[in-house]
């Protein structure tokens, strides 16, 4: 575990509880996921029951925005999905729109579980997001 002086050298910000156990558990129980492989502290490879693989980035940041997305991909490469781990964190509508345009799913874990049931999982929007996107003229 990083000590206090190491924290600034860690990208991205480490999870509050030091692990993503909840994510790992719910992914292993999901009917569309056949294998969960931890690649590094924030990266997982999910094997879907259809045989496809998803490269997933998971993080805890108060509000994941467009700049954070640019920073993530510049530092760690591209992902199929970006997940926000904690209930008190989230993402901005702009980040969702831009990720969606790149065919990258940006979700909280509960919504990712629902999205995985769709073939184009990255396009999944919650009811509130559908409403919001319509109001902004993005749908």
């Amino acid at each position, binding site marked *: 575990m990083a000590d*206090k*002086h190491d*924290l*600034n050298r860690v990208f991205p*910000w480490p999870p509050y509880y030091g692990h993503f156990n909840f994510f790992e558990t719910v992914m292993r129980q999901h009917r569309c996921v056949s294998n969960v492989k931890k690649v590094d502290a924030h990266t997982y490879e999910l094997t879907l029951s259809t045989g496809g693989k998803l490269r997933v980035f998971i993080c805890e*940041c*108060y*509000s994941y*925005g*467009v*700049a*954070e997305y*640019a*920073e993530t991909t*510049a530092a760690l490469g591209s992902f199929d999905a970006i997940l926000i781990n904690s209930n008190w964190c*989230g993402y*901005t*509508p*702009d*980040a969702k729109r*831009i990720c969606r345009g790149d065919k990258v799913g940006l979700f909280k874990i509960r919504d990712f579980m629902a999205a995985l049931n769709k073939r184009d999982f990255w396009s999944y929007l919650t009811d509130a997001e559908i409403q919001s996107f319509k109001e902004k003229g993005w749908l």
Partner: protein
Amino acid sequence: MALIPDAKLYGFGSHFQRGAQEPRDVDLLVLHRDTSAASIAFAIKLKSALCANVLNAHVVMLSEREERDITFIDRALAFELGEITSEHFQPQVSALCRRILQYSAAAK
């Protein structure tokens, strides 16, 4: 003539609250102009400078529109620490870091 800031820096969370018990991190918001490549690059550069100078800095980056969408400043009770322009980047960052550290000293 005053320069238009490329970003504003906000503080929030326990580090900035009087009497807080040993804050785990220093929560900061970089509010940048928009989601253009230049504005995003500026925000990331500023975040990097803050992380290099403030121990345990936890930096959120939002464009002005993103912030309006989610009303982060109101919800986090964030307050403005200062403005940063590309023309005066280094001295402004240094001054802001000194100001951030003053909160640690004031709490002791």
